[in-house]
Structure formats: structure tokens, C-alpha cells
């Protein structure tokens, strides 16, 4: 079995927010166990009051949600993990 893939907050960080490191998780659109497609919007985070869609890096199943809805995080924190489908 391949390893689960991280949904990395740094990879969706907006270019014009280079000077900030704090984010806020506004919404999850999936639960643990949800099947997702690569590129699908699975959540919404806020950096400097701007909303940014969090997209799935791969096809697969969400195995873990690591930052809860309403939670704060630092750039580079892993938001969730997705087990790629075979």
C-alpha cells in the first residue's frame, strides 16, 4: 500500500501572503472516509482575510483531518491526509 499523501497548507498558500504564517481553517467539505478526486475543492482556508480553496492533491480517500474546522494553523502544517486510490 502506498503512503498517505499530505494536504500541505504551504502548497496552497497564496503568493501575495508571503509575509504571514498564520492561517485559519474556515470550512471542510469532506469528512474522514470521503472519496475525493484530484483537484477537487475539499476545504476553505483563510489567510489575511482572503479565502483560499484547499484542493485534493490526489484521487483517494480522506483518512485523517488534522486541523479542525475553525482551527488555526501555521504555514507548512499538514491539514489532512489522503490515501491515494490504487
Amino acid at each position, binding site marked *: 500500500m502506498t503512503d498517505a499523501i499530505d494536504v500541505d497548507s504551504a502548497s496552497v498558500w497564496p503568493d501575495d501572503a508571503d509575509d504571514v504564517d498564520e492561517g485559519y481553517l*474556515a*470550512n471542510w467539505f469532506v*469528512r474522514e472516509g470521503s472519496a475525493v478526486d484530484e483537484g477537487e475543492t*475539499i476545504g476553505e482556508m483563510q489567510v489575511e482575510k482572503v479565502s483560499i480553496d484547499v484542493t485534493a492533491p490526489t484521487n483517494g480517500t480522506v483518512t485523517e483531518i488534522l486541523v479542525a474546522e475553525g482551527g488555526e494553523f501555521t504555514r507548512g502544517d499538514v491539514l489532512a491526509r489522503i490515501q491515494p486510490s490504487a
Partner: protein
Amino acid sequence: MATESRDYTEATETDRELTMSRAMVEAIAWEMRENEEVFYMGEDVADYGGIFSSTTGLLDEFGRDRVMDVPISETAYLGAAVGAAQAGMRPIAELMFVDFFGVAMDQIYNNMAKNTYMSGGSFSVPMVLTTAVGGTYNDAGQHSQTLYGTFAHLPGMKVVVPSTAYDAKGLMHSAIRDDDPVVYMFHKRLMGLGWMPSPPGPKTGVPEEDYTIPFGEADIKRHGSDVTVVTLGLHVHRALDAASQLEDDGIDAEVVDLRTLVPLDTETILDSVRKTGKLLVVDEDYQSFGVTGEIIARAAEGALDDLSAVKRLAIPDVPIPYARSLEDEVNPGTDDIAAAIRELHE
């Protein structure tokens, strides 16, 4: 074309859950793809994506011709929507806050709502008027009203008030396809905005395909046998919270979400009242001459013999005040609802 509305729990068991705003936008985008005649206009609906995210992403997909920012001239552009609808198009026009209807009411209630009737049915006005409603974030008297009763009172417009993402999408498909003017009133607090967090509840599973929810079908969001709570919008969630608080005390409340005021699903209300005998109506609009009075009147007309107790909670006939302590006082809260249910149950 459309999947008919299905069993709610089954339909919402999807892998994804959407906020109400995203569910609304998904329906609008679907209709815009299917039908060239559908277009959207309002203030800050293009680049901004709607102050309450009612149009996020639409500009990118459909361009400025179909997602139009318009001058702060509500009379002109709401009236223009009426004219475009009469010409056969299917405009969606957004009034940023329902409180602003005052500057354009003539177009709404003398043109939009009456032209079908006054033309003897030779004209129809297939437009949707979308608008944000409600308080709870201390924006004071000119930005916090719901005005549900005002629109529902004036004949000729259908009035839709979704409380969940699932309902929001199905009702939006129905609204755009409807041949009559539909006022689609979305509560700001339910949209799932990062900057105005929603309570849990409005975010639900939403099927990816299109589906309609017929107007005039209330939805029983919680089944119960002791007290009927009839409500709409934000207060569906407050009533559900109150009902679960009371569970431990052995009080079993039924929560009826009206979903549309015009047409009104009187049957579902009467059935519930016949079962429980006790009716609480909760509304975020002004108390007098409004939704609460209407629901109670229908219950009295249709099920008087079954009714043993009646109560209502609404804004007590004052403009919405600014300060937090004052707004909380006048806007029925979960505890107020729980107390009222308890009182009815005794």
C-alpha cells in the same frame, strides 16, 4: 432533466458537504451553463463574488456579460430585471441586503409582482430576486432585518428561505426554472462564510447532479410528538438545538422548516399540530402582522379543535438595535425557544 427531491437523509449522504453559499452558486452555475438566457446582476457580484459569496467564481466562468456589476441604482436594475424577464430572459438580480428594498420597492411590488396578474396572465416575469437577510452580527437597524413577512404579504411573488445547503441548491434550481418571480432570501449567518461562522447544521451533503425542491413543501427537520415548532431560516437551527436540549427532559419537539412562505405548506403544519396539539412559531422578522400571526391563523382555521396551546417568538416590534446586549435581547435565542417549548409542554 432534474432529479426530483428525494428522501433528505439519503440524498445528503454524499462524500462531500457544502456550505450554503457554495450550494447556491453550484445551482446558479448549472442553470447558466444549460440556459443562455440566465444572467446575474447586482452590486459587487463580479470581481468580489458577492459580499456574502453568493456568486463566487461565476465571473471567471461566464464573463462580464452574464455576471454584471451594476450601479448602485436598485430601482433601475431591479426594474430592468423585470423588463428582461418579460422579454423572455431569466435574470437573477441581487439586492445586497434585503433592508435596501426601500429604494426600489415600486419595481418589486408594483411591477415584478403584479405584471402577471394585471396583464391578465399575458405577461410573465420569470426572474429571481436574491437577497441577504438577518442579523446576529450587530449591524443595526438598516442591515439586519429579514422582512420575510413584508414580501410574503404582497401577492405575486414566491418567497423562498433555505436553511441548509441541500435545500439551498434544490430551491435555487426551482427558483430559476420557475416562470414567476421568486424572492430568494438567504440568511447571512447560514452561508458558511469564513468571516461570519455558521452554526453547525447548514452545511450538509449536496449531490453533484442538479435536483429541484418543489415550492410549498415544508420539511420536518426533526420528528417529535410533544410540541410543534414551526420556523424558517437561521431559527431552524436554533430550534433544533433547543429540541435536543429538551430531549434529556423527555420533551420531544417536532421542528418544521417552512422552506417557502409563498406557497405555504399548510398541510404539513396542520398534520403536525393535530399530532402534538401545541404550536410554537419562531421567526426572526417583526412580530406583528407577520409570519407568526399567519401560521397561527392557519392552524386556528384548520385545526382549532386540536390546539391546546399556542406561542410565538419573533422580533418584538422594535428596529434591530446595534449593541450586542440589545440585539441578543430582541432576537429569539436557543434558550428562549427552549423555554417557550417547555412552557407549552407544561
